[in-house]
């Protein structure tokens, strides 16, 4: 059938349409593959966290059908409340400076890349995304050596973790700002200059307010990257520092699965909650 020649088609067309070749009719229609794959992926993604959630609010260890809680109890959250709050505080002590540092370092880079022409620009454009792919374990290993016995020996491990997080987070701040700056009419800055504003003032009063939504997107992405980070923090952390992912890891490793589940769910709610709020803010905030 597939060898149907052009002349045959041409002869048949005026009288009756060529019937679509029917093949593999014992199989479900081909188009079902796509929603089926999607459904499978969605189940695969949401089932494990749901069982983790049931486990954390179940009043015993066994789950009905391994999925649903037998009875609801929040004892675990109550018990481990202080530990959870402590790890939230530690994560924030790292995430907030990371966000601020990424913004202060990233904004000028984005501006220079979009608006200025200078020697080294091409190289810089290539380097901006390097931290995204560079193996985190190698980055953390280098930082660990520098902060343990290298030039920064004696500097607080908090600083090492913040710096590590900032390096890997910078692309998440820079890229949305680059995209936003490319959409801002260059003439807006020129207009402010012609009306009497200095270069810095023109930027601060016209361009910066316009790109605020994208800065917020960057903030959300960097925040998410920082509080989720495990692979860099694990090497640089000390017993005193227990961010949320580290606390979860330690809870599961020490065999307290239900406690780990509770910490994990609290972390998830916190992390996803903050990011969703920021993202909603980005969409809702329309100051003009």
């Amino acid at each position, binding site marked *: 059938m597939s060898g*149907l020649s052009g002349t045959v088609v041409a002869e048949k067309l005026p009288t009756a349409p060529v019937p679509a070749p029917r093949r593999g009719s014992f199989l479900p229609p081909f188009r079902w593959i*796509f929603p*089926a*794959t*999607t459904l499978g992926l969605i189940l*695969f*993604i*949401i*089932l*494990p*966290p749901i*069982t*983790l959630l049931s486990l954390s609010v179940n009043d015993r260890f066994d*789950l009905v*059908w*391994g999925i649903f809680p037998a009875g609801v109890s929040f004892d675990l959250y109550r018990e481990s409340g202080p530990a959870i709050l402590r790890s939230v505080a530690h994560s924030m002590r790292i995430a907030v400076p990371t966000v601020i540092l990424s913004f202060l*370092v*990233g904004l*000028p*880079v984005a501006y*220079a890349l979009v608006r*200025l*022409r*200078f*020697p080294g620009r091409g190289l*810089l454009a290539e*380097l901006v995304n390097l931290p*995204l*792919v*560079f*193996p985190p*374990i*190698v980055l953390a*290993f*280098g930082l660990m*050596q*520098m902060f343990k*016995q*290298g030039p920064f020996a004696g500097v607080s491990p908090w600083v090492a973790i913040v*710096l590590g997080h900032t*390096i890997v987070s*910078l*692309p*998440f701040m820079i*890229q949305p700002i680059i995209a936003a700056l490319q959409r801002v009419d260059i003439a807006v800055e020129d207009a402010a200059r012609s009306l009497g504003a200095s270069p810095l003032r023109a930027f601060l009063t016209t361009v910066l307010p316009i790109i605020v939504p994208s800065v917020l997107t960057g903030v959300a*992405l960097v925040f998410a990257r920082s*509080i*989720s*980070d*495990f692979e860099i923090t694990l*090497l640089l952390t000390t017993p005193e520092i227990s961010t949320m*992912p580290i606390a*979860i890891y330690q809870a599961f490793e020490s065999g307290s699965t239900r406690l*780990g589940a509770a910490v*994990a769910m609290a*972390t*998830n709610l916190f*992390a*996803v909650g903050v990011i*969703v709020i920021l993202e909603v803010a980005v969409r809702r905030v329309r100051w003009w």
Partner: protein
Amino acid sequence: MQKSGLIRRETWLAWLLVAPFALMLLGLLVAPFLSIALKSLSGSATFGLPFLGGADGLADMQPTARHYVSILTEPHNQAVILNTLGISAVVASLLTVIGVGTGYFMARNRALAPTISAIVTYPSLAPAVTIIFGILWFMSPTGPINHILFHQLEWIDEPLEFSGTFMAIVIGDLALFATLAVRMMASLFEMIDPALEDASSSLGATERETFFNVLLPLAAPGLAAVWVFIFIRTMVAYVAALVLGGGAKGIVVLPLEIFTRIQSLGISGTMAQICAFAVVLSIITLAGRAIYLVIVRRAFRDRLKGEIL
């Protein structure tokens, strides 16, 4: 003269703006990496990296390639390399296929796309550790899978042992990187004009023929780019292997091998060997990224989204 003065002013401003970023990248990423690379070629058994607090300078290097040779020849190291490449290749291939299915569905179903996108984005927002532990619990001897198969249905005689298998790490990485693959594929298929499909079916092609003769050839460079991208992202991740790999006797991947060797540095192993592993991992990753960039720039002029997620 005035012209060069003008250029110099813009250049100086740009360099000034870029300086903090450049210094951070140079000082905290590039310089340590160069030092690691130097150390990996050194026969000296000291700890610490050259020029970064290490005791030895260039004179004490005793250049040697034996740490690289050992990566290729020692059976344990060979297994690590093969496991790493194998897991990354399997994950990249599976996610390319799943990504095509879901990404195409999202690109052509505008009504459901935002909801699917929100659900699929979840793993990229939640800390990776929680996802991996969710999977560990789900598959554990007391978890839902074994509960249903062993206790309820009694189809199997003893609980399935999941932890420590090749499959376990693959499933963990699948969950971690599904977001990336699906997002990139959706953006890829959005670039393909639906009118092409209509044209194909108006000429008598079935949906299957349209898909394989029109869509897939158009998307082929994108599929290659996504494959390479997922491959290198999987390659450097070690949470899944750390939690699901079953420890030192289970399945070990390259970044996890580096991690364990760092942990036991005082007891066994040498600094230089770790450095050699680190260099190998970095080089494969950077080479993969170079390939990815070549594909994306040739075929899409940088329009393929997904790098930022």
